[in-house]
């Protein structure tokens, strides 16, 4: 539970084939449309069709920050669901389940619903999930009309099944109302008319961010969990006179995007681990030929094919270091669904302004997540434009790769008279023509690297490159990146509610790092917990590396919480790690302190014995 915000965690579990995800998804929508705040998480089956799946949605009166740990309400489509999930229930949870499932349990309250029977009675066996949706609508006292409207929206294209499902839903609702008239143990007072909000998925957030940034070209190859982003772009792009191509592989994807960007478009591609591995050579080309490019990497658990449908943050090192030679690039890490929108806009700003590839790291959990959020405003400072050559520059001897102070040279594109140039993957001179001399190479390497420093400067001024919250200058801190932020925010709140002052920071640009912000954070800390979803603790290692002088000087200790299981971090895991970190520090402190006490003791003694003597 978020301390300041009562919430209900509902977990819907069952076979993929039983419409479990549809049920969870519709329930989430009904709740959102009923004025509640929602935040959801879903798993995918390992099997292609069927297989147990779980959809967890959390409802609150004010902003919800995670899907929650233990569930207050379990909706079990079948017995397996109960067996899988019973370990994850809070005290006295409410069990809503298909009546034929026998659940021997007396620690929770039971709400069986004859969903199958209802479905049968309509001889519409697949209506089971809708019967349960009806029942849930009653339990949470949602407006059945709202529910009906949403179902109608959702099922537009399947007129025939629509009516059947609605009928099932109505009967489910009726049954629940008759059988369980008393108030349901978990209920949130219907709020007054809430502020205007939207129900947004991480995938859509990135697609809309791209559109907001003026992206009109997308080349991609399907891969879980990045496909939803491609599908959103496919849906939206044409309305913006944009072009989407499903290509033959990721190598074609990145090179096609580079081609479109070379031609003057704002171009992107998106993929997941295996695809990013295949794009490494293309990233180097964009870096060398200085062609703007945005690459979204929706992380999943690796290595290799790994756990394709499960979440992870294991691609950080690949994003930072994946390239031969020293090929500069940017790496961004949005930390919420809403932030996915803004960071995507910033990604295009950086790509276009500095003519470099930008990798944006999302992950399965964040991409598939549905979250209610206020309508995002337009970013105060984006999207930035490309620097193009002036008329004079074009008339004169135009140098596409001219050496400049910050390394950025005016970029023309095919179609511009007198702007002709060669985009070159070999080392080249200011005109782009191959030049293999030591001097040119060294100088061009410096030019390209300068762009990263220039960006670091610019971003520092933006003051939007990291998010920091909690008790200002508390001695204990948490530093993380990406989709774990919700859990960390809730964890900091819980720690505070225990009376433990704590502060947290989430950088949004991992390359370049917002060094001043991080340094300032570190300077006030004694120990910092770095939680992340990968095996080797890549981010923690990077932090230790980059700031080791300061860390050692100030004797600030880094504690890593590494988890690589394909599932998100739980708030509890973070709180526990923080508490044991602080305990550990306490022992060290007491060791020292004890010694001090002894010394003072002695000194005090001395003072006493010699007190008042004057000769």
């Amino acid at each position, binding site marked *: 539970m978020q301390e300041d915000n009562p919430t209900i965690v509902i977990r819907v579990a069952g076979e993929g084939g039983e419409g479990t995800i549809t049920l969870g998804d519709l329930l989430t*929508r009904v709740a*959102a*449309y009923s004025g509640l705040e929602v935040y959801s998480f879903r798993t995918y089956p390992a099997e292609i069709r069927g297989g147990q799946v779980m959809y967890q949605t959390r409802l609150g009166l004010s902003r919800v920050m995670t899907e929650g740990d233990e569930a207050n309400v379990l909706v079990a489509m079948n017995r397996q669901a109960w067996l899988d999930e019973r370990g994850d229930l809070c005290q006295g949870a409410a069990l809503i389940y298909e009546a034929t499932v026998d659940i021997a349990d007396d620690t929770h309250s039971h709400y069986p619903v004859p969903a199958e029977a209802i479905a049968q009675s309509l001889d519409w066996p697949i209506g089971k999930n809708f019967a349960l949706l009806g029942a849930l609508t009653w339990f949470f006292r949602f407006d059945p009309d709202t529910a009906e409207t949403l179902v109608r929206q959702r099922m537009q294209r399947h007129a025939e099944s629509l009516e059947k499902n609605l009928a099932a839903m109505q009967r489910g609702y009726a049954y629940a109302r008759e059988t369980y008239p008393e108030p349901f143990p978990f209920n949130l007072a219907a709020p007054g008319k809430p502020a*205007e*909000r*939207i*129900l*947004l998925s991480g995938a*859509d957030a990135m697609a*809309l961010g791209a*559109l*907001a940034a003026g992206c009109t*070209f997308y*080349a991609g190859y399907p891969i879980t969990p990045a496909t939803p982003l491609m599908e959103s772009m496919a849906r*939206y792009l*044409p*309305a913006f*006179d*944009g*072009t989407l*191509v499903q*290509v*033959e*592989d990721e*190598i*074609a*994807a990145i*090179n*096609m*995007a*580079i*081609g*479109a*960007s*070379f*031609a*003057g*478009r704002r*171009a992107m591609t998106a993929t997941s681990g295996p695809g990013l591995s295949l794009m490494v050579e*293309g990233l*180097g*080309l964009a870096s060398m*030929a200085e062609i703007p490019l945005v690459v979204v990497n929706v992380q999943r658990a690796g290595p290799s094919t790994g756990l394709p449908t499960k979440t992870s943050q294991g691609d950080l090192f690949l994003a930072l270091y994946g390239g031969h030679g020293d090929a500069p690039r940017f790496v961004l890490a949005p930390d919420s669904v809403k932030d996915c929108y803004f960071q995507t806009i910033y990604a295009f700003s950086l790509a276009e302004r500095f003519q470099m590839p930008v990798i944006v790291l999302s992950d399965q959990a964040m991409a598939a997540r549905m979250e*209610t959020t206020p*309508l995002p405003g337009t970013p105060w400072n984006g999207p930035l434009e490309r620097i193009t050559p002036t008329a004079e520059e074009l008339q004169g001897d135009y140098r596409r790769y001219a050496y400049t102070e910050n390394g950025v040279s005016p970029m023309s*594109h*095919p*179609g511009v*008279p*007198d*702007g*002709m*140039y*060669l*985009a*070159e*993957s*070999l080392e080249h001179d200011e005109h782009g*023509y*191959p030049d293999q001399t030591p001097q040119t190479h060294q100088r061009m390497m410096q030019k390209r690297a300068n762009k990263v420093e220039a960006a670091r400067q610019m971003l520092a001024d933006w003051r939007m490159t990291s998010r920091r919250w909690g008790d200002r200058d508390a001695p204990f801190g948490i530093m993380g990146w990406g989709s774990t932020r919700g859990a960390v925010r809730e964890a900091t709140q819980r720690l505070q509610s225990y009376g433990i002052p704590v502060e947290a920071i989430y950088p949004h640009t991992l390359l370049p790092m917002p060094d001043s912000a991080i340094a300032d954070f570190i300077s006030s800390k004694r120990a910092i917990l770095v939680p992340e979803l990968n095996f080797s603790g890549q981010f923690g290692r990077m932090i230790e590396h980059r700031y080791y002088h300061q860390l050692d000087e100030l004797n600030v200790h880094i504690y890593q919480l590494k988890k690589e299981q394909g599932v998100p971090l739980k708030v509890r895991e973070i709180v526990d790690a923080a508490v044991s970190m602080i305990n550990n520090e306490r022992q060290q402190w007491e060791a020292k302190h004890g010694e001090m006490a002894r010394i003072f003791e002695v000194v005090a003694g001395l003072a006493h014995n010699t007190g008042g003597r004057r000769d």
Partner: protein
Amino acid sequence: MTESKPNDYKSDVKPIWCPGCGDYAVLTALMRAFAQLGTPREMIAIASGIGCSSRFPAFLNTYGIHGIHGRALPLATGTKLGRPELTVVAVGGDGDGFSIGGGHIPHAARRNVDITYIVMDNSIYGMTKGQPSPTSPEGIVSKAAPYGSQERPLNPVLLALAYDTSFVARCFSGKLKEMVNVLVEALQHPGFSLIQVLSPCVTFYNTYEHYREITQPLPDAHDPGDRLAAMALAMETATQYLGVFYRDTSRPLYSQRFEEVQTRAPKATLEDIFKRMIV
């Protein structure tokens, strides 16, 4: 249509090719074709991969992108879709095109994207100093294959036809005038065109004489609308026919299809989309 001369398209970069390399002829032919069509330099983009032949773009003063090995077609396709009004030409070698880049050709053909792909086929890896390529004859000996290569050569024209490429032709660096005519046609062809140019590598595999002997124009009787007939002629390898094997101008352009989709798509602003998401 502006008056222009072949040399108007020439950059100040001296080709790094060996004297006598077949690729010089291709460069000349392409410049003549551009001149004949009077295509403005700024409306031309040349994309290539890596190889001797792929150094091509640097020698023209049009727009160019010298990319990475095997990716000329994705780069060219992106460029064309990014700015459909451009004349986009992809160039490269047999290794670049049929070995590492071979997977991209069928998809360029499926899309019928409006680019002209010129493959300078010397049946060898020139840039890396003479290893067998996908079009090298069986048994060719080199340091990389001291006991002779053990693979059959691919038949580029036949492949292109099997992919349903909408314009397929073969030229020979020893026949410049003919090459110019074919390139003019190809550049005007609405859709994806693939031209295999027999372009000998004088340094590592000089085939001029051989090609002089075995090449001859396609029979006048051949109907470039007949794909099966074209395949039959392509399968004759003892004689290498030169000219346009196949041509289909009836297919819609890839870039047009996107415009058509864009017009079909109900226009919407970002605000509209967000509005639909309001709960």
